[in-house]
């Protein structure tokens, strides 16, 4: 759709710009300010240049958190996207089952994030939790508070529980938008189920899948409350991800300078990935 050139449209956008600028630009400037200063008190601060950035980029603890974060986000995308597509294909097309399934699917998305941690804590504890007790009685030695691998596994399953629904709902909406005529044509041609998926459904899902990948990437990359409540980042720091390292640094140890430098690096990483996604989406909008 071709749009009209109209500079007064800025007036309509102005309230949004003001309100977001208040919440985004001023705090961001504070962060930039902190990241180049050493602050001892309100009246004694020194300019330190790129000192904090160097320190943060060399910090082995943060390297560890970054590596864990990348592995986690990759695992999340790798599991949730195919699973979400698969389950969306299983959804009934119409009937009373649809509303019922949709409401149940959406439920985990509306649970406050720290309560997600609580739910899984209660569910997975080896002493009182349903999953924990069941796994142990099956002869598996499962204890997510003591074993790093179990903790990882639990955090990952929790995230799959929490967020796969988002992918399912997106894909389901995409599938609903495919006209019946496409399927009829495929039936006349004698196309196999796989061919229908590969040449009709998957191309039509491209748009929503990109949104799904973008949102899943962003939200998994800044995960905080769920693992914090469930494992506290442990055992050791096996499930400490970037947001938690940052919060510990800023609020726990009050290392303002390094924390601010870390914030900026963290934000830039997300921005970079997201920009690539955004360009891809924009290009697709133009083509399709």
């Amino acid at each position: 759709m071709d749009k009209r050139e109209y500079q007064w449209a800025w007036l309509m956008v102005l309230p949004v710009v003001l309100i977001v600028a208040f919440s985004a630009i001023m705090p961001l400037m504070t962060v930039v300010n902190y990241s180049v200063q050493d602050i001892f008190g309100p009246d004694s601060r020194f300019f330190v240049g790129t000192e904090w950035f160097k320190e943060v980029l060399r910090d082995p603890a943060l390297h560890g958190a970054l590596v864990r974060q990348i592995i986690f986000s990759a695992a999340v995308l790798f599991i949730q996207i195919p699973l979400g597509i698969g389950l969306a294909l299983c959804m009934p097309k119409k009937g009373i089952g649809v509303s019922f399934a949709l409401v149940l699917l959406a439920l985990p998305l509306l649970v406050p994030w720290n309560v997600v941690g609580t739910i899984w804590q209660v569910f997975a504890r080896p002493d009182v939790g349903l999953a924990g007790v069941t796994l142990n009685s099956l002869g598996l030695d499962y204890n997510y508070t003591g074993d790093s691998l179990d903790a990882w596994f639990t955090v990952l399953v929790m995230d799959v529980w929490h967020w796969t629904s988002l992918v399912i709902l997106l894909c389901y909406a995409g599938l609903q938008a495919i006209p019946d005529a496409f399927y009829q044509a495929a039936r006349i041609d004698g196309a196999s189920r796989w061919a229908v998926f590969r040449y009709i459904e998957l191309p039509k899902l491209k748009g929503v899948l990109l949104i799904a990948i973008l949102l899943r990437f962003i939200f998994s990359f800044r995960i905080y409350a769920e693992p914090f409540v469930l494992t506290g980042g442990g055992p050791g720091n096996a499930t400490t991800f970037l947001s938690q390292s940052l919060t510990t640094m800023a609020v726990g140890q009050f290392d303002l300078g390094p924390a601010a430098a870390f914030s900026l690096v963290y934000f830039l990483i997300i921005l970079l990935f997201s920009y690539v996604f955004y360009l891809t989406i924009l290009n697709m909008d133009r083509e399709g």
Partner: protein
Amino acid sequence: MGSRRRYIFLGLWLVFLMLPIYWLVMMSLKTNQEILSTFSLWPQNLTVDNYIKIFTDPTWYPGYINSTLYVLMNVVISLTVALPAAYAFSRYNFLGDKHLFFWLLTNIMAPPAVFLLPFFELYQSVGLYDTHIAVALAHTLFTVPLAVWILEGFMSGVPKEIDETAYLDGYSWPRFFITIFLPLIRSGVGVTAFFCFMFSWVELLLARTLTSTEAKPIAVTMTRTVSASGLDWGLLATAGVLTLVPGALVIWFVRKHIARGFALGRV
């Protein structure tokens, strides 16, 4: 894939989704003694003591009121500012529109942890610390861009000819927007409100940092109470169940629009 096998797969998934919630509800109906001593799939001695405790304790329900208040404020603010902006983005080209749109989106991407400290200082310096409006404003950081994004998707689906006809008929922009355009994107507005509700309701890192007593959200009341009195599993589970209720209610009301809503109007 046969349709029966598909439904079995989907059914198993729904069971997996509900199992942790089922367990939470069961725990909330048990006594602590039973939770710790015996393991059973349902309560042997059904008790609603935990619920009575929460509903009669005045330290608990302000949490619910606080959460509801700032979430509602956030939804109202977000919709009010996002509606005209989304219209501008969907209908006009103006200087820097693409860059502005991307800048807005970057705020959805920003990790809240980054803004923790600056927000704390900012709201303290303007005297808004520990008020509902502070949390609502802080949440607009991601709900407003999200609202603009979703509404823009829905508005782009409305043919431009409708606008032009209305202007030819002598409608002013505000009158056209409120009496003709808004009813057309009704479901889009509903979906947007739902998303603002959702993201404001589930976010706690900022809400927790910006409040101490007056505007403390329920989920924070919950964790603090629990850590103060040691691990009271029954009470913890009950509080958890009660935080699920508002979300479940809202989903029920928007169930017809959920699917298209989650695609952000972009299908």
